[in-house]
């Protein structure tokens, strides 16, 4: 019976000072990190929506990887006028379609108006109604898988560009932009938040008033004006969004987290041990704010993707190709009200933006439950 009375001192008995010295610190950290990762993963895994989000992101990751591979392999030999048909910018498939000349065009895929036919032909004599004419693809073509020179899995856009290729490339652009914006935003917010919380006083007041101002500025209208003045490219846009969103709400939230870390005893201990400001901030406060920072990174991606796509849709950005531009082209070329009839023009891009945002949003929400125990079920 004696053993039942001994207190559980397993940890202490196994305590071996030698081992602590011998085991390098990084290994201890790694072990602890792995343990907490497993525990957090179990919590994350509880939320099925979060897992779905992760799967969506993985799918887009595959799409982004697939584009260069396909360009180098299957799509490499499809040349038309010296240019690759599947090239996202220059590529245009000149599939020749036979169209009937009619007075009033009801189906733009098989019919053509007299005036358009005149421009297509030699331009000398006016073509007769009822005649047929060979028309290169000036209209979006529906999806074709095989049997033609250049199969288009998701059809072509109004200029003959391959929608599927554009869609895959768009995933690359989205990841690039999302990563730039999220990292710059959260890095800035973490820095501003911890500095503000740690030093307090005037620095805190100034930074927080700045955050107030940034929250108040309507982001999209401001970016509209900026993109009207400057030639905004993808990287610049990412950094711009990162700065504007990182100085605002995220900084305030991370500051309150940093404040709750700052009052913990181990910060006092670090200070008494002679830790400098910078060391305390980087070694003690930031690591404890980091989980929340990662969480807001997910939401930052969602915001950045939306902003980019909206600006591209409005035709204000100077970027190569993105999902927003795909919708913009369909919209400006007059297919807005065609709806399902030319579904491949807007649905793939629209759904891609939606799912991509939703993926990060869902992962963010699931992470929220891991970081913030109050949200859990029990």
């Amino acid at each position, binding site marked *: *019976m004696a053993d*039942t*009375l001994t*207190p*559980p001192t397993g940890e202490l008995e196994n305590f071996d000072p030698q081992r602590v010295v011998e085991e390098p610190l990084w290994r201890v950290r790694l072990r602890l990190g792995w343990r907490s990762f497993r525990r957090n993963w179990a919590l994350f895994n509880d939320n099925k929506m979060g897992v779905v989000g992760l799967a969506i992101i993985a799918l887009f990751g595959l799409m982004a990887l697939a584009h260069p591979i396909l360009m180098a392999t299957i799509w490499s030999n499809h040349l038309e006028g010296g240019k690759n048909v599947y090239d996202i910018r220059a590529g245009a498939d000149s599939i020749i379609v036979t169209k009937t000349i009619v007075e009033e065009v009801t189906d733009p895929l098989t019919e053509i108006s007299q005036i358009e036919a005149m421009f297509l032909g030699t331009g000398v004599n006016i073509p007769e109604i009822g005649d047929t004419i060979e028309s290169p693809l000036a209209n979006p073509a529906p999806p074709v898988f095989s049997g033609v020179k250049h199969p288009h899995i998701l059809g072509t856009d109004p200029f003959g560009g391959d929608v599927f290729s554009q869609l895959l490339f768009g995933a690359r652009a989205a990841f690039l932009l999302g990563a730039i914006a999220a990292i710059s935003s959260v890095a800035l917010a973490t820095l501003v938040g911890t500095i503000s919380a740690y030093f307090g006083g005037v620095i805190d007041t100034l930074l927080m008033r700045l955050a107030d101002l940034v929250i108040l500025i309507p982001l999209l209208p401001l970016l509209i004006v900026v993109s009207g003045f400057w030639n905004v490219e993808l990287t610049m846009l990412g950094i711009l969004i990162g700065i504007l969103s990182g100085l605002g709400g995220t900084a305030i939230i991370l500051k309150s987290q940093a404040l709750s870390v700052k009052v913990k005893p181990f910060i006092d201990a670090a200070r008494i041990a002679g830790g400098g400001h910078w060391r305390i901030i980087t070694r003690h406060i930031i690591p404890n704010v980091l989980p929340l920072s990662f969480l807001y990174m997910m939401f930052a991606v969602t915001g950045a993707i939306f902003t980019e796509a909206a600006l591209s849709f409005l035709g204000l950005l100077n970027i190569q190709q993105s999902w927003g531009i795909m919708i913009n082209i369909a919209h400006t070329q007059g297919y807005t009200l065609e709806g399902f009839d030319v579904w491949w023009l807007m649905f793939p891009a629209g759904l891609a933006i939606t799912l991509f945002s939703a993926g990060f949003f869902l992962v963010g929400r699931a992470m929220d439950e891991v970081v913030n125990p109050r949200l859990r079920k*029990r």
Partner: protein
Amino acid sequence: MAQTLEIESRGGKAGTPLLEVQNLVMHYGTKEGDVSAVEDVTFTLNNGEAIGLVGESGCGKTSIALTLLRLLPDNSVVKSGDVRLDGESLIGLDEEQMRRRRWRDISMVFQGAMNSWNPVYRIGDQIREALRLHWPETLTYQEETERIAALFELVGLNPATMERYPHEFSGGMRQRAVIAMALSCNPKVIIADEPTTALDVIVQDQILRELKKIQKELGMSIIYISHDIAVIAEVTERMGVMYAGKLVELGSTIEVFHRPKHPYSYLLLKSTPSITGPRRKLAPLEGEPPNLIEPPSGCRFHPRCPFATQQCIDEDPPLTTVGEGHSVACWHWQEVPEIGGLQK
């Protein structure tokens, strides 16, 4: 029968049984398995009596309180047993019938009065809400206000403060107001769950005295629940000691304090300092409360018990009478030594 606006207890004749808890078994279903939170608990509260339940946190005290009011979370199941108030089973009532009895028959003083007030409504209005729901005859607004004022005076608060919001009250004031609210519908039973835990020591003492005075004056029946054995000693006549969901000892407070018969009660008392009693060495209670998903076999206390034998591992000791109104669930109660005792 016309109801007066008098503040009183609606219980019956002093000394007759009022609330009977019989062989109550309650489990929580969790992902890991069933948590046996309350296991075969039996006790009776008589009219005009104050009894106490004491035990470590997680031993099932609060679960009993919530079972009495049927306020348990969705994942809980009352497996067997019964709770009878004036002979009527509360477990068998449907939700609507039970709702009507809450506060009117059994009211509660919650632990942590800080958060038991809704921050957006005035204190007075929150008491008014209870009156509106449960007072047998509709009162006019003026009558309600008068009754709340009377309640405030009874618990030592200025009636003018009923217009204030919770954040304008200090911790002690809030707790007094909670007591006023508990008394508002002249209940038969009040359950005081850790009524003073969040307060500082001096306020704690004031509130306990106040509660004891009110209980005596009104002949109120109160069940005190606390982890703090000193609180129980101050205000109750009889007490039960709970361990891991089971009631291990039940007896008059003086008796249990002087001659605890259960090793757990003994160790618990030994670990508590006494100001008034003789000086003695404090012995901390070693080990931790067991995991209730897979409770220890036999007597649940055996892994921590210095008196444990093979019998304790194999067989669950029943609650047996060992003296005048004193019963204990232990195979070795005769071996437990006497404590010098704590003067009441």
